[in-house]
């Protein structure tokens, strides 16, 4: 039994069998077989080993002929390993004594060899040896699985997916009924995997570090997404413990569900508009179910990632129309234009790999030099505007000039549509994300150019403190309540009020009960959060008075460190909601 720790990315407990994705997506269909099937599995393994050994000898001959003895040696080594009686004997023993399937026995055995090399810790020689062994494992599995190699969208039983990394479109394909957990070696708390898993309510743990060598497809695993841990091959007591935990969590469910239709209003009558953040049209109904009064942030990146070509105007249009139709004529839907850099487009030919992608050509900057792409999205949004209350927002705006350029391009698109006689709503509210410090500092000027602001706290905090949240050497500097950030929030909120425009907060901060009083006290009246947090936020608001909130903000702004503020906010929340469990 092995416990691995990572970053808690999406809460929930699940117990199931592992599906390990290597770079070729090979998966092991079955772990154990009945005793009657054992002879057949033994035969399959013998045949597979023989095939792959012959293959290796063939390659040795071919490669030696073309490139010489030294190159051919690699395959000689493979063949030799495969021809070794010990290999066959060891794997057959696993099948006989444990009733493992051929695939599972191969995988277990090879991984134990790799682990042994890992433990002896002998550097380079071991690294090459490990790579060879993993290569052999793959070849044997390929031979065993033959045509039956399945892809991600063929999952029929409940599995917990293990991978080094998951692309957004891979995660997006997951059906919460079959994928009951996700664990990745890399990633961070705000990575796409975390966001998507949270949106899909699939327990997830990321940034575990080296993990894949310790788990085989078919292993029984427990995942606790809320605590950020994974247990591989748990013993009976542990299984019972987590089954109980899971039962308890399911029974409690959403403690605030009853608030779904209640108003988000403070005790002394100040209303706060609560909206939902979505990545896919299919999440729009969830927003409504969770009591959101609209979509405060529709992240449109998922229309672009992992496709072989850019999305067509129709693909954009269909997605936006769907969301608008679900939300209806009077609930706002704020669509954020493309917020990615070229590095995220898998079909972009990597000519210039940026050294600092977060300070590079991405989001609105990328759009302004790729006007066709930009206009396509804007056209689709305008065309969809007749189906509801759509608003457009531009990400990563850092100067007034950029905003002006965006507006002028939008005007061009409006003229094009008008000329073609295509229907669209005029005067759609336009807003800008405030996430680059320069925009926060120039908020008073920007406020005159837009109909609303939306503060992207995740990036604003990172840029302001110059700290990468996913870099564990500096992650401790990242705090949404660092005094510098609080002053910027105040600045933006005041600028908004002075210009009479709405200021929304999207970003993780708006979904955290701990920060609600502070945000309301700073003058913010619109929060957009991941749908499942909305009721909890509403609960805090309903127990708050504006006077209280104002005092909290005022006190926090006097403090000199994030830690001071956090402690203060915790105390305040504890007094405000004595029955809430502190996280």
């Amino acid at each position, binding site marked *: 039994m092995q416990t691995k720790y990572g970053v808690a990315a999406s809460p929930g407990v699940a117990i199931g069998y592992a599906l390990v994705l290597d770079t070729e997506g090979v998966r092991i269909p079955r772990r154990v077989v009945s005793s009657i099937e054992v002879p057949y599995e033994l035969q399959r393994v013998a045949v597979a080993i023989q095939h792959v050994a012959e293959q290796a000898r063939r390659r040795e001959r071919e490669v030696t002929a073309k490139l010489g003895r*030294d190159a051919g*040696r*690699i395959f*000689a*080594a493979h063949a*030799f*390993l495969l021809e*070794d009686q*010990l*290999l066959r004997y060891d794997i057959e023993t696993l099948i006989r004594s444990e009733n493992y399937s051929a695939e599972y026995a191969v995988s277990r055995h090879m991984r134990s*060899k790799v682990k*042994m*090399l890992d433990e*002896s810790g*002998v*550097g380079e*020689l*071991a690294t*090459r*040896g490990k790579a*060879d062994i993993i290569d052999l494992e793959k070849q044997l599995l390929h031979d065993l699985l033959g045509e039956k190699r399945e892809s991600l969208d063929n999952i029929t039983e409940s599995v917990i997916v293990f991978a080094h990394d998951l692309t957004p479109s891979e995660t997006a394909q997951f059906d919460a009924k079959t994928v009951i957990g996700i664990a990745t070696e890399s990633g961070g708390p705000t990575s796409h995997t975390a966001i998507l898993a949270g949106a899909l309510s699939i327990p997830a743990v990321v940034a575990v570090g080296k993990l894949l060598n310790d788990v085989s497809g078919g292993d029984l695993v427990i995942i606790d997404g809320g605590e950020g841990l994974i247990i591989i091959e748990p013993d009976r007591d542990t299984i019972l413990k987590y089954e109980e935990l899971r039962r308890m969590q399911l029974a409690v469910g959403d403690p605030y569900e009853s608030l779904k239709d209640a108003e988000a209003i403070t005790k002394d009558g100040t209303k706060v508009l609560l909206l939902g953040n979505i990545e896919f049209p299919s999440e729009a109904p969830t927003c409504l179910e969770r009591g959101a009064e609209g979509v405060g942030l529709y992240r449109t990146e998922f229309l672009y990632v992992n496709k072989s070509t850019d999305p067509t105007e129709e693909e954009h249009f269909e997605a936006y129309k769907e969301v608008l139709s679900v939300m209806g004529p009077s609930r706002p839907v704020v669509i954020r234009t493309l917020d990615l850099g070229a590095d995220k487009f898998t079909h972009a030919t990597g000519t210039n790999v940026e050294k600092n992608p977060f300070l590079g050509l991405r989001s609105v900057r990328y759009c302004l030099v790729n006007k066709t792409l930009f206009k396509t999205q804007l056209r689709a949004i305008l065309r969809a505007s007749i189906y509801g209350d759509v608003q457009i927002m531009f990400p990563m705006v850092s100067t007034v000039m950029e905003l002006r350029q965006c507006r002028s391009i939008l005007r061009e698109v409006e003229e094009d549509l008008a000329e073609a006689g295509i229907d669209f709503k005029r005067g759609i509210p336009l807003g800008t994300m405030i996430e680059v410090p320069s925009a926060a500092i120039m908020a008073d000027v920007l406020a005159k150019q837009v109909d609303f602001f939306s503060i992207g706290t995740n990036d604003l905090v990172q840029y302001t403190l110059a700290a990468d949240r996913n870099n564990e050497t500096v992650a401790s500097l990242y705090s949404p309540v660092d005094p510098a950030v609080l002053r910027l929030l105040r600045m933006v909120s005041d600028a908004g009020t002075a210009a009479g425009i709405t200021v929304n907060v999207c970003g993780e901060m708006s979904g955290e009960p701990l920060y609600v009083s502070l945000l309301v006290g700073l003058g913010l009246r619109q929060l957009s959060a991941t749908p499942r947090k909305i009721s909890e936020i509403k609960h805090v608001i309903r127990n708050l008075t504006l006077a209280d909130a104002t005092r909290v903000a005022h006190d926090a702004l006097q403090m000199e460190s994030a830690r001071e503020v956090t402690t203060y906010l915790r105390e305040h929340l504890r007094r405000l909601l004595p029955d809430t469990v502190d996280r």
Partner: protein
Amino acid sequence: MRPATDFAELAVSGLCDVAVWKGDKRANGKSLWDLIGLCVMQHNEVILEVDGDGAHDVINRLADILAHPG
């Protein structure tokens, strides 16, 4: 990997038994798995044990491979 392969192939080609000792760990010289598991690195000291027909010849050639992994 490569010298280990050469070593094992040579060991297998002969009639005698071949064992390699590193400290108190023993590996069957005819099994590449065993040899990899032994993790013999440069400058490690190992003891070769060869027993059977043609042992002298084999042991010299094996020692040569170890000395000049190339």
